[in-house]
């Protein structure tokens, strides 16, 4: 029995403090995953709290057939999708400038570099936001958490081939949209050292 299963058993035996340990184990990685999806601290915190409450209330339904993290992420994806449906699509897809400022604050002493990096970030966030919900989730699961296609498939309830296809398609769309933006002269070419 691994750590998660022992903690879950304790919770089901009435020891709520064990759940606090589970939350502390997973809160950072789930926060990162949800933040990359929403690009909003406020939304991330709301969704994260809802995810853990839902996990606690349904913990008795958890089966060790699944990995606990896979089960947790599938609940996070469902809560995100339902949150996403409640909010209007355009509102969700808006980039929050203050969030991008936070990202660049470490290099604020170099305004030119900071501006360039911020512009690149805006571009990347726009490209990621142009993806369909499932493609975006699959791409983020792949690169934020480093999940395998099998794990992504379990979380999204699709086949591993379909999960791989979603990630590949997401990258293809990102390149296609980038080519379109570049063609319209919206962005300068992005040069990155190999």
């Amino acid at each position: 029995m691994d750590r998660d299963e022992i903690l879950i058993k304790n919770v089901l035996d009435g020891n709520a403090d064990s759940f606090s340990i589970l939350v502390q184990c997973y809160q950072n990685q789930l926060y990162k995953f949800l933040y990359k999806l929403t690009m909003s601290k406020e939304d991330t915190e709301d969704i994260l709290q809802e995810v853990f409450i839902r996990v606690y209330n349904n913990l008795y339904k958890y089966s060790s057939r699944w990995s606990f993290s896979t089960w947790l992420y599938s609940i996070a994806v469902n809560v995100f999708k339902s949150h996403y449906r409640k909010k209007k699509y355009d509102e969700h897809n808006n980039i929050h400038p203050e969030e991008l400022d936070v990202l660049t604050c470490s290099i604020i002493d170099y305004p030119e570099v900071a501006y360039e990096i911020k512009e690149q970030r805006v571009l990347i966030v726009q490209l990621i936001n142009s993806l369909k919900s499932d493609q975006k989730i699959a791409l983020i699961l792949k690169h934020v958490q480093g999940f395998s296609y099998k794990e992504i498939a379990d979380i999204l309830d699709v086949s591993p081939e379909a999960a791989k296809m979603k990630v590949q398609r997401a990258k293809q769309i990102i390149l296609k949209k980038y080519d379109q933006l570049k063609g319209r002269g919206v962005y300068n070419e992005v040069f990155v050292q190999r």
Partner: protein
Amino acid sequence: MKCSYSAEDLIRYTEGLMCDAEKDELKKHLDICESCRSRLGILKLTEDHLKEDVSNNETMYLKVMGAIDKDRYLRKKSKYKLGAFVARMAPFIKPSAAVILILVLSLVAVTQRQHISNVMSSLGEVFSKHDNLIKDDENKNNKNSKFFTAESVTELAKGQPPGGWVLSGDSNIKDMERQVKLKFYVKPDSDPSSSKNETGEVIAYLHDCNELYDLGLVVSF
């Protein structure tokens, strides 16, 4: 120069799915192709952006612990234990339940064949009686209807009174089953020397559903 590398090739490169020879070839190509360099840059920037850590105050567990019902699993321990058992057994319960259901139905079908046959024939009779009752009701409703469809019954042609003719009166004729309405139009006497108002010519029309059906000149006096 036309670039021979597709988006799929660049994705394979970033995911480390190319063999060494392919990688070396692509690296040489990147030295001379600004477009591929730029597109590869976008893929790498996307991955870097996603991998980048995000700071949070790490106090979420306090909020969560304040929001959950801590006694949930203490109060109804046996209920949730049973729920957990069912959830664990769900993958075995579903197929087993289907097999058991099929077996039970097969057993019932074999042992109670005569009874099922009787029930089915009784049901057939009930449905048949029900259909007949509906048909009887429909016939009764048709008979009770006071509306009379002139066109289909009498094959009369629709018509309109000639210009200047005026409605003189109407008459309802009915029997036990039907009712028809007749309208009479008269030709006014336009001769100023005449003392009469009408010429004495009358055309009758059958009135049905706001339509007039010509019955012809019925009287001349």
